């Protein structure tokens, strides 16, 4: 090796600030760039970020775009009888609250994968399906914590809760089925992922449309046709209807039984599909 090439291989002189001070701009720039690079390397995150504002416009704006103001007026001021909007909203909020509880199960699953605990589990005679089902039921159970909190808040707002004990039991069973179904869906979607960001993104993606395209926040009678169609098959609406009949109106009717049936079907379907997917795609690490 000649002297010239040896010199060329030496690292260039490091240029430091002539005044000898230590700045922070370069560090800030480096860290900021890292944040962006990490975020935008996950195509899922980009797509959802771009789609999110349009979904707000479509789903939230869709409710009010065709609505005569007089109807909104009469709903907000006069319905439901005597108890006001909070009484109408409570069952809806309890139901929509069940939408994103799967997020915590998904996050704990990703944590288990990242720290190798999934290996510790799967090296024992434990099947992937068992891991999946225990996480889904764990999420759904955790979701129940919000029920007493929300009910206490409603009471504080002066809402008159009327349901019979049997009705309440039915409403809670409905919420558990809904929560279990969505946890199962959530964990199936994230079974193959090891990225911390994924559960949050999935939560955003499924929560918003299903929250508005249901009878949870507003009566579906004021919705445009396409949103009514989504609400027809949206399990959140069935859970909200069931809880509303029982808690707000104090009636346990035939439609409540239908609601429970639909929710049970939803939970069973999600559990079945999710178990198959997780058995196949649940990542070990």
């Amino acid at each position, binding site marked *: 090796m000649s002297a010239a090439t040896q010199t060329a291989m030496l690292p260039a002189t490091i240029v430091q600030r002539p005044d000898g001070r230590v700045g922070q701009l370069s560090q800030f720039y480096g860290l900021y760039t890292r944040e962006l690079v990490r975020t935008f390397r996950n195509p899922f995150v980009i797509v959802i970020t771009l789609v999110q504002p349009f979904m707000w416009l479509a789903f939230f704006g869709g409710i009010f775009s065709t609505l005569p103001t007089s109807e909104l007026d009469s709903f907000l001021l006069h319905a439901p009888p005597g108890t006001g909007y909070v009484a109408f909203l409570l069952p809806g909020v309890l139901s929509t609250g069940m939408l994103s509880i799967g997020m915590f199960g998904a996050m704990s699953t990703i944590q288990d994968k990242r*720290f*190798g*605990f999934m*290996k*510790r*589990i*799967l*090296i*024992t*005679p*434990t*099947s992937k399906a068992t891991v999946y089902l225990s996480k889904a039921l764990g999420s759904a159970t955790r979701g129940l914590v919000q029920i007493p909190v929300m009910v206490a808040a409603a009471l504080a707002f002066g809402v008159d809760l009327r349901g019979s004990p049997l009705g309440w039991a039915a409403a809670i069973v409905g919420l558990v089925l809904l929560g279990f179904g969505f946890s199962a869906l959530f964990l199936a979607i994230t079974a193959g992922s090891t990225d911390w960001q994924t559960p949050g993104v999935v939560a955003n993606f499924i929560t918003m449309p299903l929250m508005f395209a249901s009878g949870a926040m507003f009566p579906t009678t004021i919705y445009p046709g396409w949103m009514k169609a989504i609400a027809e098959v949206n399990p959140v609406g069935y859970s909200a209807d069931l809880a509303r009949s029982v808690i707000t109106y104090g009636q346990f009717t035939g439609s409540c039984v239908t609601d429970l049936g639909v929710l049970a079907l939803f939970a069973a379907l999600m559990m079945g599909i999710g178990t198959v997917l997780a058995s196949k795609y649940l990542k*070990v690490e």
Partner: protein
Amino acid sequence: MTANGLAISAKGLTKQYGKLVAVDHVDLSVPHGTIFGLLGPNGAGKTTIIKLLTGLSDITEGTATVAGYDVRRDPMHVKQRVGWVAAEVILDDDLSGWENLWLQAKLQDLTDWKERANQLLRYFELTDRRKDKVGAYSTGMRKKMEIALALLHQPEVIFMDEPTIGLDANVRRMLWELITGVNRQFGVTVLLTSHYIEEADYLCDHVAIIDRGKFVATGTPSELKSRVREDYIELETSEGVTSAKLEAVLGVTNVRQQGSAWVLRVTSAEEVLPRLFQALRTDGIRRINVEKPSLESVFIDITGKKIDQAGSDVQDYRKFYVNMRRARR
């Protein structure tokens, strides 16, 4: 106990990830009650072999039997009979030692486990700390806890992946004693991976040297070492010596100059040294160094390269360790 007396046997074991062949037609037989070492550099396929033998990863080709059960056909029965100790110590830090044992008992579907758990806690001197969260344990205690978990269901075979990586010399020594103790007292077959030559030499009854997914040599440590029969003598003298003078000594087969020193390959250091002292008595020997065959020299002999720059590796693992523990808090 299986009929053929083997705790682990594999034929043509192969794992392919896309185009990469991580494990390439490996044959393996490990007798009951022995300690078997997979020795090789990082990325040689050691961990992949453990994953294949425990059913964590699907076998692409070949067969494997562990504790009497076919890994492909009957992975659940294999999993009931094996324990596993991870390189990076995997415990649930939010749970206490006892709770970790409880969870392990549940995952292994054990009923009468408490007496054995208490015995293991006593054996590993963890009884006093059993109610503390394992996140607060020292590194050595965490490692012991992990081995206790692996032993809880009385496995026939324990897999230990780089059991002492990232540990300081004292903890490593302690762990060596524990591993031999566990092997003898609990009658467990141990398959461990390592890239520390001394570790494999000290612990293992049998060693397979693995490089790029293939077994390049197998045998007992002394069998392997006897493959490289010649010793090396390195010496420096104060007076100038010619290579011809060194070559003339009986038993010297090769002479090479390395800086100011001479490196001699000799048939046997014990026989050649007296002759060498005699030949060089007027040349003033300043320094002399004898190197006997080691697993390291076997590896160099077979693959033409050193097994690893283990030092730099350890530092990386230390960092990894620290980060893992921080992330968990």
